[in-house]
């Protein structure tokens, strides 16, 4: 096994046994197996334990602010539509702080792979509830247990007509890899919500819990059926894993629309000065 996307001399900041290790391995393998050009790939991440993943993948990266990976990724696609862009972060990062961007990036249909590490807890700030924490989850802050309805990213994405909506669990790495590959191959915005345990701050949602409370969608599920997908998105205990919905029709992506299908990177362009001159002179 080669390690094309291993980054040298890095000090990994995760706890032993963390689900993030599995996701990191998954991403590197998928990039390698899909023969993605590392020079032509950018991983944009926010802040959080999950958002540290790109530091350990040997490709371009833009490490931004908590919650702000999606608009940065959008800007990169505007500037150079040829780049393969991945936005990566945790549930607090992407669904909490960056909730507004989550909504509008889906609406735009930016052609990116959106990977969300979902462990239902805040790790880096040491154990507060996240938007996806289950009701009743007790923490140092939510001392009487979480009372908020958990955020349902799949249902939200579907309601905004996302072209690719999926959920996997790192407990089933082989299945997760298949889904992630499909996400890369999707033309348009693709959401991959990945269940992972936080071994330090979430003693409720463990590997076992995820195993007991999820099931893998089989061929009986038609992933081109939007209504069926919507129904699946609301299923709980057990929660479905797999591609809930994908639109295989070629829908115009955000960057194709705003760049009028010109995929040319903007750094290669300069404006035609005589044209500026003429326009100015017309005033």
């Amino acid at each position: 096994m080669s390690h094309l996307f291993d980054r040298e001399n890095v000090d990994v900041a995760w706890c032993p046994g963390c689900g993030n290790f599995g996701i990191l391995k998954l991403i590197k393998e998928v990039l390698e197996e899909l023969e993605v050009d590392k020079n032509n790939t950018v991983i944009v991440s926010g802040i959080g334990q999950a958002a540290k993943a790109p530091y350990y993948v040997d490709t371009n990266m833009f490490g931004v602010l908590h919650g702000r990976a999606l608009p940065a990724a959008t800007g990169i696609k505007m500037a150079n539509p040829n780049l393969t862009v991945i936005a990566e972060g945790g549930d607090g990062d992407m669904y909490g702080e960056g909730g507004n961007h989550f909504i509008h990036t889906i609406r735009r249909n930016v052609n990116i792979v959106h990977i969300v590490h979902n462990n239902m807890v805040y790790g880096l700030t040491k154990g507060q509830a996240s938007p996806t924490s289950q009701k009743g989850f007790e923490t140092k802050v939510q001392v009487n247990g979480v009372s908020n309805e958990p955020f349902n990213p799949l249902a939200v994405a579907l309601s905004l007509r996302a072209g690719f909506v999926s959920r996997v669990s790192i407990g089933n790495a082989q299945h997760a890899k298949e889904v992630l590959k499909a996400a890369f191959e999707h033309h348009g915005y693709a959401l991959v919500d990945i269940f992972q345990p936080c071994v330090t701050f979430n003693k409720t949602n463990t590997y076992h819990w995820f195993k007991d409370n999820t099931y893998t969608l089989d061929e009986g599920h038609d992933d081109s059926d939007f209504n069926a997908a919507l129904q699946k998105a609301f299923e709980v205990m057990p929660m479905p894993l797999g591609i809930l919905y994908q639109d295989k029709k070629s829908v115009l992506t955000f960057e194709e629309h705003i760049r009028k299908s010109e995929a040319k990177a903007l750094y290669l362009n300069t404006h035609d000065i005589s044209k500026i001159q003429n326009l100015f002179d017309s005033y």
Partner: protein
Amino acid sequence: MTIDELKSYDGRNNRRAYIAYKDVVYDVTQSSLWQEGEHQGMHSAGVDLTSALSGAPHGDEVFKEFPVVATLQREESTTKKEPLPPQDFKTDLRIFYKKYHPHPITVHFPIALHLFAAGFDIAFLNTFKEIYAVLVFYALFIATVMGFVAMLPGVLSWWINYNLSTQRPFVVKLIVATITLILGVIAIEIYLQDPNVIYSYTTPSIIYHAIILLTGLNVIILGYYGGKISWGNLGEEKMQTVSFDMNEPNIMMSSGSTEQESPRLFSAPASSVKIASDERNLADNAHQVSISILIGGAAGLGIDTLEKILSNAFKASGYYVYSTKEFMSRVRGGSNTTLLRIANFPVQAPCWEVDISVAMDALALEHMKERWHHDTLILADESFSGDNSNVIAIAMKESAKKFGNAQYGNTYIAGLLFGILGLEKSFLLQSIDKHFKGEGSNKEVAELGFQTGTEIENLTLPKLPNTDIKAVEKLHLMDGTTACGFGFLAGGCNMITAYPMSPSTGVLNFMASMSKEFDIALEQSEDEIASLMMTLGGWYGGARAMTSTSGGGFALMGEALSLSGMTETPAVIYLAQRPGPATGLPTRTEQGDLNLALYSGHGPFPRVLLAPGSLQECIDYGYLAFELADKYQIPVIFLSDQYLADTIMMSKDVDFSSYEQRRYITKSAGDYERYADTKNGISPRAIPSFGEGLICAVGDEHDERGQITEDYKMREQMVGKRARKNDELTREAIAPLCKGEGDIAIIGWGSSKGAIAEALERLDDKRLEHVHFVWIHPLSKEQLSVLDDYKYRIVVENNADGAFADQLKLHGVHVDEQILQSNGFSFFVDQLVEMIEKSLKELS
């Protein structure tokens, strides 16, 4: 040595004194004729005197005595900057005058003889000796004849050197000289009638002796004012200084850059310089006439259409046009006004009191009341003009209705105004044709309005002089928003992400319209946080991106601004200010966000603040914003405001080919490190997919390759690296534009430029000098050194907190007085004149 470098050798404060002649630089420090860098009170060291020599009483042989220290290097743009005087008869005469001084040559005869006559007449009155009487008469006779001879070159000089200036010394001289000549003729006449009469106590005798003594006194007065013109700061010398200073803003201070690719960051378009100086020369013309028209009405009545039609028509008629709006934050109703000023000189500021006031509805009539002066021509529709005898009732609505649509009201008013002003109707009709493309009966309505207008008596309005239609035709009429947009385009802007917010939205609209012509990526973001994040993503990916916003939106960008600082990702932020706090006055103006722009974002990082004050500056500095952002990998905040954004002024031709299209992107090698430590702190910036390397840009503290680190030594290294960028950047700070010769500085920044400039022209007080800052931050010692020489410093700001004065104080500049205004309006020139006068009183 360049012209810029030469400037620092001005001989003052123990500095060396260098002068240049025909591209050779001489050291004149040791010369007794060049003490303190001054030569005969006429010339200063530190400049090129090639053109001045033609007017000197000596030739170039004098230079042989001085040691040669360097040759003068002229950069293309600098050479172009020297405005070449037109080679006409007047110029020839001026050169002749400079060399031979015909007026001083001739004028000494009558002066001496008049004094001689007066002296001997006193002797005669004491002794009654005939010899004295004869001497007095012949002295007077020759003095009077010579008086005519001397007056002719004097009057000629008044024309060629001083443009028939009506300043006090010229007027006094003309009157006194004429009286002296007339009195001389009278006295000669009395004497020739009967020479013996002067011995008697008769009326003719008393008149004769009185004239002799009075003309003696007259020539003393003439001599005094003659000296004042030659040696004081009047007329021609003032004009020279002005045109020289107007060259200043486009000259970048020595960048001291070690980067080979850009020894000079900002190659200003040569054209800009010409524009500025031309405008000033025109403005110095003593015959400035302007008429102000205030049109008021509810939103939705079509004032904007009227503004457009009239502006174009006035321009076609050969007048400089200026218009600015004041409007309420609503789409329909309320009471808005548009102020139009037309003139035979470039107008760049609003006035509070107006010459013509047109009310489109009753509310507007009430709203505009405060802005009427004694002779304001007030026009209102007959339906609401009331019984106010000052108001001229016009059948606007009825006339418009005749053509079937009340919406014709504004074309009717356009016609009416053209009629009142006695302008050529065809220009208006062409403008209407162009706007409405022949639709409806607009032309007929305008003609009807025109007819009514010609019948209105307007004795109080100043008569508009004829102007050079062809010259004005070449000017470009646009608002500050559009000029900024062209500046950003020239700066290579190819991406904009923004959330609409008044008064910044115009730039987003402009770029949207330009995206049809150019490859510009544009997206309306979900919020201002996303705006700046997308912009940063754009730069990371290789675009030249920007965002536009106002104070509230900018406040949301704080964290992303800080990210720009940490990741060293460039950004250009157009911040159009409006009065806060919070929603404040959304459609009005203020320079209130300086501190926000300066201190926004956590942690220290270098940034630049630029604030243009004219169309030309919007373009020049719009271009510069992108250059600085790219070169230094920093956020550049471009401060405009509602006033500048929405005000329509005129720009001369701009040569866009002089804005070099540069990119500061490096092709990466395999071992590329995004934050490689360099001498000046600037790491070569590469972008993904261009080269072999990987680009790791991160908001955590990082090592040179962009990996997270908490190593304290690395932290210190990176803090130092970012700080060194700021040092380098500070050296680029552009000096303020100084106009005038006085020792009291009236200091302004950004959009107040036009108002301060015209206020000082109106005050015509030689103690005052206009100092205008566009480069607001970072301020440098060299940049501020121009402020050292003033006795007093008055800072004018369109805000309540005097934030810029605070910055000056922080940099050790003493501020004596502050003029602040934060009522939602920009400065009105007539009100500003009073405010400055009041401040001057406080000082004395």
